[in-house]
């Protein structure tokens, strides 16, 4: 039972972290290597909210707004001129990630920061006691996943975004403001990254480099998933599950490389990953 819960919650956390990256990759076709930095920004929003004495739950909206606003500025001034040069965009966002990390170090110091626990304690599920917070993360992943399906399938913005994903030139010719769609998408992606950063705070230490460890894993997952949220959910479940199984039955050290190795194998066999799901 514990094993099943471990797999589900691990997959959920990976999913929440990777959605922001996938959103941007899907529409803009660039990998935002500053994603890790945005996770960190979100986590420091939680620290700031704690220092102001506000309720720790307020960190979620604050981080989303801060992430989205900073993301909007980044898209306008750094990413937009580089759409035609995706490789340079990778370099630019990677560099931006380093800059953000250093700015956070200047503002908050290099030390590890602390936030109030959101949901301490455990709950009993079918006879096993399990961390309430990890269960909450599972719920959060489901809400975000469903919310996104609704956004993509049920709104005008989603329709436009899907049009851009399928054929951007055609969408542009048909009168869609693709520039605006890209901008809004980038903001949402960055906002989601901020949100994920807050979600991580009760599980990890908060320090200026915290995002980096998660960036690599979510990058792998997005590569495997392609552009679909369902594929991302599947990838998280399979690869995250494999990570938990390897860690439990073989060695946690091997578990640490499971996601990367499996992603490489999957892409070797099927270069499109799970994107046809």
């Amino acid at each position, binding site marked *: 039972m*514990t094993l099943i819960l471990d797999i589900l919650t691990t997959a959920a956390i990976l999913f929440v972290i990777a959605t922001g990256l996938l959103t941007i990759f899907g529409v803009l076709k660039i990998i935002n290597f500053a994603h890790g930095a945005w996770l960190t920004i979100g986590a420091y929003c939680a620290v700031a909210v704690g220092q102001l004495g506000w309720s720790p739950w307020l960190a979620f909206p604050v981080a989303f707004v801060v992430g989205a606003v900073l993301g909007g500025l980044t898209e306008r001034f750094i990413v937009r001129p580089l759409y035609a040069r995706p490789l340079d965009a990778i370099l630019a966002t990677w560099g931006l990630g380093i800059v953000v990390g250093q700015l956070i170090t200047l503002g908050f110091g290099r030390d590890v920061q602390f936030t109030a626990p959101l*949901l301490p304690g455990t709950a009993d599920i079918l006879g096993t*006691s399990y961390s309430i917070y990890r269960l909450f993360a599972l719920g959060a992943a489901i809400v975000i996943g469903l919310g996104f399906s609704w956004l993509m399938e049920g709104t005008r913005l989603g329709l436009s975004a899907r049009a851009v994903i399928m054929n951007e030139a055609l969408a542009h010719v048909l009168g869609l403001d693709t520039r605006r769609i890209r901008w809004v998408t980038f903001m949402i992606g960055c906002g989601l990254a901020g949100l994920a950063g807050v979600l991580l705070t009760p599980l990890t*230490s908060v*320090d200026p480099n915290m995002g980096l*460890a998660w960036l690599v894993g979510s990058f792998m997952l997005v590569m495997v998933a392609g552009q679909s949220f369902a594929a991302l959910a599947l990838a998280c479940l399979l690869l995250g599950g494999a*990570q938990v199984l390897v860690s439990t039955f073989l060695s*946690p*050290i091997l578990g640490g490389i499971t996601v990367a190795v499996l992603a490489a194998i999957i892409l070797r066999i099927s270069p499109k990953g799970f994107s046809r799901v």
Partner: protein
Amino acid sequence: MKRRLLLTALAATMLAGPAMAEEPFLIGIPVGLSGANSVVAPSVVQAAELAVDEINAKGGVLGRQLKVVVADDGSGAVGAQKAFDSLVFQKNVNAIISMETSAARNAGLPIVGKGKIPYIYTSFYEGHSCSPYLYVDAWVPQQQVPPVVDYLKAEGAKSYFLIGSDYAFGRGMLEFARKYIDKTGGKVVGEEYLPMDGTDWTPIISKLKSSGADALITSTAGGAPNVTLTKQLRSAGVTIPYANLAVDEGTAKSMGADAAGILISASYITGIDSTANKDFMAALKKKFGDKARTPNDLSVPEYEGVYLYAAALKKAGTTDTRPVLKALGEVSYKGPRGTITMSKQHHAPLTMYLGQVQKDGSVKVVKSFKDVDPGDQCPNL
């Protein structure tokens, strides 16, 4: 031409100037101002500066003043080679006294051997580093682990689970812990490691919970991995006695409620109830004011290391390396941690303190173990 001559003459007088008075003894401090040790390094430098100031205020040693020369070793081997080279061969320091990573220490030792000067290492480490030039005034596993295990055993623990970060120090500490537990009749029911940049301890925690262990001993890398593991342990509802070999008092303090109940074992805790410690803390506050860093198990040995070196100089009555090295193993200094003598194969018997983190973040001394022996570290010295 004439002007150049004048300049040369001027330079010569300037160079000759300080040499006329007695030159100060130079103490080289290679320390990780950047990299992994950068969080703790400022407190180490402050401790050295305070010791030097105090000694100078009382007239110095052998009629000469002491002076600190700091160099950044980047917390690693490459930086340490540069730092040691420049300190030993360019600045011509009289001794090296510093806390560093093991990699940096190993890189610096051959340089110290070539320069033939004393090197006092003031960081706890995995043990068995031996050189005629090296003295250590901080703890080794043989001193830190037994108090923890003995205490847990007295509390009724029979089976233990060990969790660590996958690197030399983490594995070294837990390997020693496992042997010591076996020797004292306990049982290790699980031992797991995660890479240093690993963030998800979930499978390990699930194993811990299903193992039914009575007590948990962890030795992760300091900082982030330590905090991450502790948070995830607490959120998984782990409540068995928990000894953390790698947490320092400052981190434990800022972790707040999550850290409550954690047992730590150290040769220095700010709560040591002695006049030497209180005077030391007051002096630090007076010299650095708001900028004073909280003293810790790495900075206090640095402070005492400077005093031990001064005492050795005084006893030897000369700066010649051989007599000073001999004296370093004989002199004692009564500092914040108690009376320190590096008499045991270049290592020091130390009083170890077992502390427990309280709900408000303060660390209470539960028990102290007087003059714990470092064991056979360097039988050939």
